[in-house]
């Protein structure tokens, strides 16, 4: 019945407009052929190509990482404040990505509310510095510790939860923090935010744009310029991010870091081998939160202003996307993903409102094309004999 109807419609079409129909048929034919050829290559071939690409990338990684570092160190040489601010933004997300990587990538605990720690760090610094007049470097550890405490507080109720239950509870905690910040007006000034947050100083030297006595430019006899502050902020976040990376790489070699990875691979096996799952999970949350808190304090001092608007779910989603796009657990991948996502987002500035549309579509597209992230190979932390690259497909993602 259906096919008879279709045949009738088709023959009518051919009879009425032979030329357009012929063109359409030819287009469909060529399109299908190309699609089939492309598809035929895929599956096995694509997987093979993927693996080859991953291996090449990891080999190249030996050179890519130092190269990126050199470029990162050299950014201030450009002297252009636009690139400095973009660099600061990218480095902030690199740091957040590396921080969340500890929780999601290493310990395999899906955290959808990472922005909560960022917010706690930012508001801790904002409130302490404006109330007690303390400087950035004094407050930085306090902000980190407060965020870590919040991480442990979040960790306790979720110890027994798995998978998506954990995801929704972390999301809920992120929202709770935002709602409390918005409504606790006496402490946080509510939706209006806190302004006048002190800027960081270099051993007491201020970075005032106009110069003057006691300022950085005055002390070093440099021409006063707002660029000095941007340069300084850039190096501060670079050092903080590298600290995150270094601590993560060191921790991975400690029993604690190995326990995280073991937890991600198999929680039951972990437990039966005598690993204290409670401590392992809580430290993952706490250390991830600590770096989130540092990044938050930096965010507050960079902006000199914080408001609840900066700490919405979309921030958590962006950081999580960076971690997943980079390839869970891969430090280089996270840095690359942050560069691609945040830098790319900046490139499309001209699109205005349509920018988020492109951003969302890019997320879908990258995930569909490279579900395992940009860097799809992992080097095992411990290995018997020579360390060999393994495919990311063999690495568990954790069920926690």
């Amino acid at each position, binding site marked *: 019945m259906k096919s008879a109807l279709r045949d009738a419609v088709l023959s009518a079409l051919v009879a009425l407009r032979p030329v357009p129909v012929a063109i359409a048929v030819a287009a469909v034919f060529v399109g299908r052929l190309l699609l089939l050829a492309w598809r035929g290559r895929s599956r096995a071939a694509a997987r093979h190509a993927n693996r080859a690409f991953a291996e090449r990338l990891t080999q190249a990684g030996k050179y890519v990482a130092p190269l990126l570092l050199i470029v990162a160190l050299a950014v201030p040489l450009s002297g252009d404040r636009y690139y400095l601010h973009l660099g600061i933004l990218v480095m902030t997300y690199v740091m957040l990505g590396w921080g969340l990587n500890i929780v999601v990538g290493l310990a395999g605990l899906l955290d959808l509310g990472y922005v909560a720690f960022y917010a706690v760090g930012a508001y801790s610094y904002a409130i302490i510095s404006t109330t007690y007049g303390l400087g950035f470097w004094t407050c930085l550890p306090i902000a980190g510790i407060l965020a870590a405490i919040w991480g442990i507080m979040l960790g306790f109720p979720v110890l027994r939860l*798995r998978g998506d239950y954990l995801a929704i509870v972390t999301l809920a905690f992120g929202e709770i923090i935002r709602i409390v910040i918005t409504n606790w007006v006496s402490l946080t000034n509510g939706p209006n935010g806190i302004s006048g947050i002190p800027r960081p100083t270099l051993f007491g030297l201020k970075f005032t744009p106009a110069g003057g006595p006691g300022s950085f430019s005055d002390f070093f006899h440099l021409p006063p310029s707002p660029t000095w502050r941007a340069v300084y902020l850039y190096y501060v976040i670079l050092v903080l991010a590298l600290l995150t990376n270094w601590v993560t790489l060191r921790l991975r070699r400690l029993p604690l870091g190995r326990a995280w990875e073991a937890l991600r691979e198999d929680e039951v096996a972990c437990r039966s081998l005598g690993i204290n799952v409670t401590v392992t999970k809580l430290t993952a949350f706490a250390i991830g939160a600590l770096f989130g808190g540092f990044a938050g304090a930096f965010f507050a001092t960079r902006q000199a202003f914080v408001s609840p608007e900066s700490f919405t779910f979309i921030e958590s989603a962006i950081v999580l996307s960076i971690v997943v796009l980079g390839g869970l657990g891969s430090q280089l991948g996270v840095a690359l993903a942050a560069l691609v996502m945040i830098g790319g987002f900046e490139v499309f500035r001209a699109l205005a409102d349509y920018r988020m549309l492109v951003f969302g579509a890019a997320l*879908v597209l990258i995930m*569909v094309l490279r579900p395992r992230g940009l860097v799809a190979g992992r080097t095992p932390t411990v290995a018997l004999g020579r360390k060999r690259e393994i495919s990311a497909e063999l690495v568990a993602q954790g069920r926690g």
Partner: protein
Amino acid sequence: MAYALQQLINGVTLGMIYGLIAVGYTMVYGIIGMINFAHGDIFMVGAFLSMISLLGLAAFGITSVPLALALTLIFAAAIASLYGWTVERLAYRPLRGSFRLAPLISAIGMSIVLQTFVQVSQGARVKPMEALLPGGVQLMDQGGFAVQLSWMQVAIVITTLVVLAVFTWLVTRTSLGRSMRACEQDLKMAGLLGIDTDRTISLTFVIGAALAAVAGLMFLLYYGVIDFYIGFVAGVKAFTAAVLGGIGSLPGAVIGGLLIGLIEVFWSAYFSVQYKDVAAFSILVIVLIFMPTGILGRADVEKV
């Protein structure tokens, strides 16, 4: 007493809307084990479609409210289903069998796309609409406080119950429902036994989206204002409801929805409006501490 009764009525109405959305989350989760983050935005699209349809019908001179509502329901559900199907086809199907976080990120991307799409095509401002079904019935009067049951609330509760009844029939009595339940139990085995799993999953998204669109219409009727951001808020609440009820369980989703609705309304009425979401989320955390798989969820048996 009268005050509490009024809150009970409001809470049940709100809970019904959450329940309808939560069913979509829980159904998708049950079959392919992913959080469909774009579901809240499908709900939002449904609300916008309903508004467009109602305004369009009014422009064509269809003034009979029941007819307009019925047409809108069908229109919004149909178009939203199309959205649901497309989202699944574009963003989730290529990632089937991939690892767990890939579809999650893809879903977040899709959610951003839908939200921005509505924002740029409909504008970011809040869209108001006048009440369609004004008036109601006064149930009781106690010390000057009148308990109102508006026609709108009656319509919402009745429509939701009818839709849920049809849905239950679909899941328990039809062959599609049987395939869906089979896929939920074991996707691979269902495929081996000749069930077209891709088609079943697509239809699950279609049904979920249709239910979300109905919820969108209800939301529009109940609150009278919508904007592009309602999807996220309602989506998170509905997902909370699904988890609270035990994700994967259909009755659990409705129970969870009702609970979240009641908690929210009672907390706003007796404590503070600002912290109603904190209350809902706190109840979720507390329930999950004592029942890690929700109220009706099955225990997650782990085999080694």
